């Protein structure tokens, strides 16, 4: 395949003219894969930098007052300091809650012989396919001060006052923690499952015992996963729009995102420059978090845990304690899955709210009305699926190549690229939406009012998440495995196809899934970009919620979750799990 003709291009017998070829020609002759890499890198850089440019350019030139005027206006906005404070409490409060939920579950499912591990694993991902919007809706149906089902039950049992108030800071952090925990679960579990069991055995044999092995070996080796998860949760909480909007707004608890939405974007006329300024504070905070991550992780190669001689993890026999771990998992599942879904199902099929779900009180009419043509729910559903499939696939393909370039990049190039791909991490949905409106609603890209502008928003927004997942997997593949393929005569493309891709498949798959499910539920950018006809399922859902049509909200929620879940299960079934593929 690599004929002698190719070889003479680059070996010493080439002519004098060939020897004076410029460096880039030589680079392509040495490695044709460069062309693909360059194309992907340029596309990705454009997708990110072009809207960012317009965001800054547009924001600071908008209106007559300019930057100073906007800053002065900012200082006079009532309630802004309060919103800052709330944001701080929510983000810092959610982190420990999410980890407390997720880390034991990771350990239970990857390292112990707890019964029903597969069920637990699937259940731990259920809140992940549950959009935060739906979680928030479900929990307000459960624990709203007066009408919440749990409060109604408590009232029947004799409680004088409502026992729970979900429209509070505690309620907000609790729901946020539950719905952020799957990010921790997925990210850390991927690392745990790929870890060479011998590393743990080595520690056990060194006399460290289970607990100290967990602390000194497993935990440090999971650190890249844990830190990535923490950053993910932090930034996701910071930019989360649906949960504070549903649970915080009724009692006047604004966070930065809801504040931006209600005080700048939905203001008449829209005050985009103020939105941009507030968003820059969020960008600053996220930037700090990312800098911290980079510093803590230090040298990447220290965490290469999959080498050419890996061994799948071994399970710990917990003895009787396995029922305790099962109990823990059950409690989590109850809070995160069973109660919310029970109330959604209740809401979807109940005739009279607050009464027991006996046969006479059940109805199928909500389902029929929700999907009746006059409400046009199908359009939102189809739009969401198309956007999620297209967005996740394009972003995965792009970031697969770009991450490869980042991981293999020598010198400054890789770092610059790494930086560029992480810029969207600092851009919450509303900011991304504003940037999109500036960038793609003018020549040469007149995309406003089409699905394309939303697709671009999704792809751009999720590039960093995908790049992180994929480059994390790529870094786990030891360089020698690739070098061995090159020595055997495999060009870069072949090495990638035969060695790298099979080994990172599960990571890439996890990344695709992460994006697909996130895009299915996307709300905070879509709600700014949609026009009638391009609404997504989340947008339809919020419209129904604002109309207080709770039954329709419940029906739509269940449909959305069922669709996400189906795709997740199919993908995991078809492509298999990493451990299984190694054991074949």
């Amino acid at each position, binding site marked *: *395949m*690599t004929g002698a003709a*190719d*070889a003479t291009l*680059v*070996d*010493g*017998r*080439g002519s004098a003219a060939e*020897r*004076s*070829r410029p*460096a880039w020609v*030589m680079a392509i002759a*040495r*490695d044709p894969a460069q062309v693909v890499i360059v194309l992907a890198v340029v596309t990705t850089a454009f997708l990110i930098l072009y809207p960012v440019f317009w965001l800054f350019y547009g924001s600071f030139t908008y209106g007559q007052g300019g930057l100073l005027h906007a800053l002065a206006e900012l200082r006079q906005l009532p309630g802004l300091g309060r919103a800052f404070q709330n944001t701080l409490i929510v983000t810092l409060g959610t982190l420990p809650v999410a980890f407390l939920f997720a880390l034991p579950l990771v350990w239970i499912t990857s390292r112990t012989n707890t019964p029903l591990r597969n069920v637990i694993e699937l259940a731990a991902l259920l809140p992940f396919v549950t959009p935060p919007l739906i979680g928030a809706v479900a929990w307000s149906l459960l624990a709203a001060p007066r009408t919440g089902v749990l409060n109604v039950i408590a009232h029947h049992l004799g409680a004088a006052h409502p026992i729970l108030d979900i429209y509070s800071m505690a309620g907000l952090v609790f729901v946020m923690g539950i719905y952020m925990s799957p990010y921790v679960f997925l990210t850390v579990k991927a690392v745990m499952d790929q870890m060479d069991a011998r590393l743990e055995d080595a520690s056990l044999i060194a006399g460290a015992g289970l607990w100290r092995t967990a602390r000194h070996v497993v935990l440090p080796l999971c650190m890249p996963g844990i830190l990535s998860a923490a950053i993910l949760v932090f930034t996701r909480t910071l930019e989360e729009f649906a949960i504070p909007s549903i649970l915080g707004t009724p009692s006047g608890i604004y966070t930065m995102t809801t504040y931006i939405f209600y005080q700048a974007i939905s203001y008449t006329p829209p005050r985009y420059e103020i939105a941009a300024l507030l968003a820059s504070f969020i960008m600053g905070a996220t930037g700090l978090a990312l800098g911290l991550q980079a510093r803590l992780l230090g040298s990447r190669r220290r965490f290469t845990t*999959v*080498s*050419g*001689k*890996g*061994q*799948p993890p071994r399970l710990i026999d917990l003895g009787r304690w396995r029922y305790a771990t099962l109990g823990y998992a059950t409690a989590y599942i109850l809070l995160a899955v069973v109660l919310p879904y029970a109330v959604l199902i209740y809401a979807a099929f109940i005739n009279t709210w607050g009464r027991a779900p006996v046969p006479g009180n059940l109805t199928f009419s909500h389902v029929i009305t929700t999907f009746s043509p006059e409400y046009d729910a199908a359009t939102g559903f189809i739009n969401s699926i198309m956007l999620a499939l297209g967005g996740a696939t394009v972003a995965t393909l792009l970031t697969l190549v770009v991450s490869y370039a980042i991981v293999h990049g020598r010198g400054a190039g890789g770092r610059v690229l790494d930086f560029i791909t992480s810029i969207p991490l600092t851009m919450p949905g509303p900011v991304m939406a504003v940037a999109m409106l500036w960038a793609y609603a003018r020549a040469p890209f007149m995309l406003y009012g089409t699905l394309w502008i939303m697709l671009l928003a999704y792809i751009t927004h999720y590039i960093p998440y995908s790049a992180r997942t994929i480059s994390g997997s790529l870094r786990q593949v*030891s360089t*020698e*495995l690739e*070098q*061995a*393929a*090159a*020595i*055997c*005569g*495999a*060009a*870069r493309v*072949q*090495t990638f196809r*035969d*060695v790298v891709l*099979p*080994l990172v498949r599960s990571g890439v798959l996890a990344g695709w899934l992460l994006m697909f499910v996130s895009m299915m539920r996307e709300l905070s950018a879509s709600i700014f970009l949609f026009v009638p006809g391009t609404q997504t399922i989340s947008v339809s859902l919020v419209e129904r919620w604002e109309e207080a049509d709770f039954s329709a909200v419940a029906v739509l929620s269940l449909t959305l979750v069922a669709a996400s879940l189906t795709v997740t299960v199919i993908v995991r079934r078809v492509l298999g799990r990493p451990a299984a*593929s*190694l*054991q*074949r």
Partner: protein
Amino acid sequence: MTAITLDRLRKQFGAVPAVRDISLTFEDGKMTAVLGPSGCGKTTTLNMIAGFVRPDAGSIRFGDRVIADPARRIDVPSHRRELGMVFQSYALWPHLSIAENVGYGLRMRGIGRAERDGIVRRALARVRLAAMTDRYPHELSGGQQQRVALARAIAYVPQILLFDEPLSNLDARLREELRSELKALHGEIGVTAVYVTHDQAEAMSLSDAIVVMADGEILQRGTARKLYEEPADIRVATFLGKTNLLDASLVERSAPHARARVDGIAEPISCRAPADAGLEPGSLSVRPEGVKLKRAGASAGGIAGRISSATYLGEVTHYDVSLDDGRRLAAHRSAAEPLAVGAPVLIEIDPDNCYFIARREATSARARAS
């Protein structure tokens, strides 16, 4: 032919020079070991030959073919260098079966399935793993994995084989076993082989020639015997086997032995010296087996000392002898007549096991480094 020629090869990582303008030929069909402590540049040199690291200057040729020469913008990528390589970590692909691992290079050369299967089976038989074709790497022991890696490297009959400390992850017995297998295999296929190691026993037993490196430079090149008996640098003397180093000055050159004066010892010591050595200061490298111990009083003459420790090693006993001024010498002596710890002894130095190393040789590298 496929000798490997390095010409003024240089590589620098940031401000740190890893390989400093080395010129060297790895002879066709021979196994050459590159020996040195970690950080000496041996792995960087190997990586440049393999194409994983680009040289900053100089050139690499395989036979007549220039495969790397930055000045002429030549840099043949690894996959077109027609090499075989065995890695320290084995680097078997965990998702491929043993047969798929071994057959990969053949697949890359467009060899059809049927033919490939036959070659793979023969390659695996050669490393005594014919029964393992359908297993996966993690089901094999470390020694077996490394033999698979070896089969993978030779399956497509490359003209050059590179070894990057292939035995250092294995236990001692397995290491010795594989060492002799490797040597026999190399004898059969007779390819040009470069074997990087920090283990002197491995280098001495496996290779036709040894190159000793330190600080990115080549200290000396030669057969194991030459390096052991006539080290050109005190670092060579200490890498290969144990030795006693004494500050000395050459005071007389005459055949067959020269004489060197050592501080605190009255009589000049007879030794061998390189032909180009002048009457100059340097070091005497005295191998432990060249330090002859006699019971004090048994005969006259020799340097006075006292046994400070004795270690029985089977065929020989290792003695630590302290001289009157506190200096210590290591000595090997037949175990037949044991000497007691504390016993006074007279030391005689066997001129054939004592070699003079001129100082300029030892200091030149450091002078250039600073």
